[in-house]
C-alpha cells in the first residue's frame, strides 16, 4: 500500500460539488463502475481505473472497506504498454518483405503500409503485458479535501478526468493561486486583491528583474 510507504509525494485538491446521498453508496458505485479493466491479452495500449490499495490486482469494491475514519481510501491504477521502436520496426520490415514476396511486387501502397503497421502493433500489443502504476488517494468528503499521492503530471491529469466521470464532482488542484482562493482567512474581497499582485523584490539585486 503506497500510503504506508516510507516516502510520499502529495498533491492536494479541493473537491467541488455535492455527493448524492447516500454518500457511501454513491462513492462505491462510482468506484465500481470505473474499476480498472485488465488489458493483458487485449490490444489496448492503456487502461485507467480505480482499484483497492490493499489488493490492487483483484479489486472488489463490493466487499472492500474503503472508509477509514472519515477518509475514503482508494487508488488510481494506470496500466500502460510500451514496445521499443526497434522491435516494431523489425516486425514491420519482416511483414513488408513477406507481403512483397507473396504478391510479387516491388512496392506497397501507402495505405497498405499503414494497415500492415496497425496489424503489427495490434499483434504486438496483444502479447505485451501492461506495466501498472498505482497511486493512492485519501478523500475527506466532509472537508471537501482530497490528497493524491503523486506529483506526476500524467497521473494527476488522469485522476482529474476519471474523478469527474465517476462522481460528477470536479477537482481543483491546489497551487498558490487556488490556495489563496480557498483559504478561509482570505475573504472574497481579499481574493480579488490577489489579481492585482505583482512580484516583490527582497533585495537590491532583484530590482532589475
Amino acid at each position, binding site marked *: *500500500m503506497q500510503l*504506508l510507504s516510507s516516502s510520499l509525494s502529495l498533491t492536494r485538491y479541493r473537491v467541488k460539488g455535492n455527493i448524492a446521498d447516500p454518500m457511501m453508496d454513491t462513492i462505491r458505485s462510482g468506484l465500481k463502475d470505473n474499476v480498472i479493466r485488465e488489458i493483458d491479452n487485449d490490444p489496448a495500449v492503456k487502461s485507467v481505473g480505480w482499484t483497492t490499495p490493499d489488493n490492487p490486482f483483484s479489486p472488489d469494491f463490493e466487499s472492500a472497506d474503503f472508509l477509514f475514519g472519515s477518509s475514503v481510501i482508494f487508488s488510481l491504477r494506470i496500466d500502460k504498454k510500451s514496445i521499443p521502436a526497434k522491435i516494431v520496426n523489425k516486425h514491420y520490415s519482416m511483414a513488408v518483405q513477406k507481403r512483397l514476396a507473396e504478391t510479387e511486387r516491388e512496392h506497397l501502397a501507402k495505405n497498405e503500409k499503414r494497415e500492415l503497421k496497425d496489424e503489427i502493433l495490434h499483434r504486438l500489443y496483444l502479447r505485451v503485458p501492461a506495466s501498472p502504476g498505482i497511486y493512492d488517494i*485519501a478523500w475527506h468528503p466532509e472537508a471537501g479535501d482530497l490528497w493524491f499521492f503523486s506529483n506526476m503530471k500524467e497521473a494527476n491529469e488522469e485522476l482529474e478526468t476519471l474523478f469527474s466521470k465517476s462522481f460528477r464532482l470536479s477537482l481543483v488542484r491546489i497551487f*498558490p*493561486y487556488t490556495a489563496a482562493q480557498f*483559504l478561509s482567512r482570505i475573504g472574497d474581497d481579499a481574493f480579488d486583491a490577489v489579481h492585482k499582485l505583482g512580484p516583490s523584490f*527582497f*533585495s537590491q539585486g*532583484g530590482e532589475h528583474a
Partner: protein
Amino acid sequence: MLDVSVAYNRYKFLGHEFLTWLWYRIETDPELTQKIEPDLESLAIGNRVVLENSRHNREETITIRGDGAGLEEGLIALKKGAKVTEINLVCRSAEYEWRFNLKGESLALSGLKTPQTGKMEKKEDLEGAVLERIYLVEKIVNLTFGLYGVFMGERLDPAWDNRTVGEINRWIGRAVAGG
C-alpha cells in the same frame, strides 16, 4: 476565475515568495510552527534548497544540497535577487521527525517521511496503520497550508511593501554579513 494553466503560471511567483518568506520566518520567528500546529515544536531548513534568479532575463538556478551543507551560498543568491523555488524542511515534535520537500510553484509535497508508524503484523492492523499515517501526513498538510495562509495574510496587507519586504531585505543583509 482565471483559466487554471494561466493562473498557475501567472501566480507561481507567490509560491516562490512564500518559500523565501518562510526561510526568513524560520530564522526570525521560532514559535511560528506552534502557532499553526501546536503539537509541532520546530521547523528548520533541511538538506536541500533550490533558488532561481531570473533578473536580466537570464534564468540562473542555484541548488544547495547535502546534510550539513551551509546556506551561505543561498543567502548570497538571495542578496543577488534570487528567490527560493524548492525547499527541504525538517519538522520536529518531541522524539518525532518529519522531512519533506515543498515546491513553491505547485505547493506539492515530495519525499515526505513521517515518523514511523506501528508495525503491521496482521490484516486487522491495516485500519490502525492507515489512520495513523493519515494523522501524521495531516500534520504537515495543515502546517504547510497554515503557513501559506499566514504568508498570504501578510502579502495582502497594505504594510507588505513598506514593512515586510524591508524586514526581509534587512534580514538578508544581516545574514550575508554574519555568514
